[in-house]
């Protein structure tokens, strides 16, 4: 498990080169070709990239990240794909833009020195310029673009932003027709230059400042909308493709983040669960004698099993059993910890004499953490897949799913995330444990299996292949812990209710529970 370099996040476990081939195979000769941008997840959302040689409008409110997106489009082209690019700015001065970009881990200066990236400065002069009436910004802009694009052999163009230049120089009554004509001419001329172009416009409340001229709808062949709003503790950014004429794309709003590395988009991962690669005869044991026996050897490979139970019943410990057993037999694992810090999990393991640190050091055990405020389900899924891709894990534990629900994440999106995770795991033959805190303090009245508040856990039961129930019962003067396997798809299992204790060595499963 040596050499755990950070791999690129790749959706659905396809490598970048495979993805490229895949999307390329979907375009037909003579049709609109896609132009890979190189921005993480963005190409995936665009199913291969931006329409090659066309103008795509980026409509966004202030602070939504459009300047970053435009800059990264140019930067990725120049740095990764040897495609020189032009950045035309009507608003901010190039030096101000560059100052803002220095916070990213991008090595821009050599590219600017080599003229692989050229900034065209059309921002208002700080002083010494007076505008009287309306003026023609179109021809000078095109002249400059054409001149520099030819000079450096540009393949990409970003223009930031159209609203600014339009409002600066246009005062005519017939603005609407005028702008439409200009946009039409613009995309025509840019097409002739063969530049794949992102053109930004300001929007307010999702309405582009240009849309009052009916211009963007009318002229542009593609529109991408960026939006952002404040969540409880973080800014929630989303983007959506509103239109991409002649091209396929992933519809719907997609979360994205702006990190030091740039923009990361998290489109839903299309997972074909029908290609599931699992073998029911291969069993994944917990290393807990009575439980493994009840499961007839363990969980069938590729199964998703819910461990539902009350607080303190030992869900985390049982999950640790599962991962530790895997690590002991040479199977890497991923622990998704949503409640306890990694150190606490390691200490809990230590208390049972399981030293996980060597496995952490070797990379065989990887932790995925997520802040439980404004959880981004898609990002979390990418993190899990990323972890699995780096250590080839065969076992995953999510501790716990219920904490996602209590953390302002809608039950629907939790379910969706679990469906995606389950689909991914099945295609990889990975066995997954989902811990779920069920609400009742004490399990059930005599003769009643479940309390009233376990319904949410049960909502998940349709997507899981097995359910193991942990609970307390009060009998006589004592509280006893009980365990039973409620469901195990496609496999025999014992229906007995078993008593168990947790001691220094972990779970100790005892005899059948005798009822009264």
């Amino acid at each position, binding site marked *: 498990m040596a050499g755990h370099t950070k791999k690129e996040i790749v959706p659905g476990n396809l490598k970048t080169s495979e993805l490229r081939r895949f999307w390329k195979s979907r375009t037909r000769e003579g049709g609109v070709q896609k132009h890979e941008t190189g921005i993480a997840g963005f190409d995936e959302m665009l199913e291969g990239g931006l329409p090659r040689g066309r103008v795509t409008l980026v409509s966004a409110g202030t602070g939504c990240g459009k300047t970053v997106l435009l800059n990264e489009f140019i930067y990725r082209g120049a740095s990764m794909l040897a495609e020189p690019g032009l950045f035309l700015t*009507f608003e901010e001065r190039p030096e101000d833009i560059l100052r803002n970009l220095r916070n990213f881990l991008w090595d821009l200066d050599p590219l600017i020195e080599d003229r692989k990236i050229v900034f065209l400065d*059309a921002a*208002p002069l700080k002083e010494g310029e*007076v505008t009287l009436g309306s003026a*023609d910004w179109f021809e000078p802009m095109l002249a400059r673009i054409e001149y520099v694009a030819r000079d450096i052999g540009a393949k990409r163009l970003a223009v930031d932003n159209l609203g600014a230049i339009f409002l600066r120089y246009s005062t005519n009554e017939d603005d609407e027709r005028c702008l439409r004509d200009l946009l039409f001419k613009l995309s025509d001329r840019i097409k002739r230059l063969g530049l794949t172009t992102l053109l930004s416009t300001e929007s307010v409340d999702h309405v582009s400042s240009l849309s009052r001229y009916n211009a963007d709808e009318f002229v542009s062949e593609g529109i991408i909308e960026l939006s952002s709003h404040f969540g409880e503790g973080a800014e929630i950014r989303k983007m959506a493709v509103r239109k991409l004429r002649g091209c396929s794309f992933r519809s719907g709003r997609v979360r994205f983040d702006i990190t030091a590395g740039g923009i990361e988009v998290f489109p839903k991962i299309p997972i074909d669960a029908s290609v599931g690669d699992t073998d029911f005869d291969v069993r994944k044991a917990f290393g807990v004698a009575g439980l493994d026996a009840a499961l007839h050897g363990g969980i069938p490979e590729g199964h998703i099993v819910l461990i539902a139970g009350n607080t303190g019943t030992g869900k985390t410990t049982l999950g640790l059993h599962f991962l530790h057993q895997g690590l002991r037999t040479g199977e890497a694992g991923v622990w998704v910890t949503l409640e306890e810090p990694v150190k606490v999990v390691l200490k809990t393991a230590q208390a049972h004499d399981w030293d996980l640190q060597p496995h952490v050091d070797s990379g065989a055990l990887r932790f995925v953490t997520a802040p439980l405020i404004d959880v981004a389900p898609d990002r979390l899924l990418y993190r899990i897949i990323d972890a699995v891709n780096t250590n080839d894990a065969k076992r995953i534990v999510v501790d716990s799913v219920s904490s996602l629900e209590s953390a302002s994440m809608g039950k629907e999106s939790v379910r969706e995330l679990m469906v995606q995770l389950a689909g991914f795991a099945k295609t990889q033959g990975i066995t997954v444990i989902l811990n779920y805190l069920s609400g009742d303090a004490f399990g059930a009245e005599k003769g009643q299996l479940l309390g009233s508040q376990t319904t949410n856990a049960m909502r998940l039961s349709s997507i899981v292949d097995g359910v193991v129930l942990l609970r307390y019962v009060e009998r006589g003067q004592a509280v006893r812990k009980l365990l039973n396997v409620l469901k195990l798809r496609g496999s025999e299992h014992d229906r007995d209710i078993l008593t168990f204790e947790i001691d220094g060595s972990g779970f100790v499963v005892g005899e059948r529970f005798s009822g009264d």
Partner: protein
Amino acid sequence: MNRKRLRLYVVANTPSGTAALSNARQICRECLDGDWDLEVIDVVERPDQVEADHISAVPALVKKEPRPSRRVVGDLSDHRRVLMALEIFAEKGMAPIP
């Protein structure tokens, strides 16, 4: 060697370009007593100059010399306003700034 230079950027053979040119010539002739040089540049012909001067819209009349450089973009028909914007005329009255 004239130290008073104006440069006009236009798109040649367009109504606004032709009007700007005639306004600029008139300004030089009538308000500046032919004391200034006027250089006319067609943005289509000389994109390199457009880029070098960071011209973002036309017509643009640029005072190149004496420094500091000043420019007027748009409608040049109000000669007095144009000359004030170029800081060739003072804010009030018609007297050239010495």
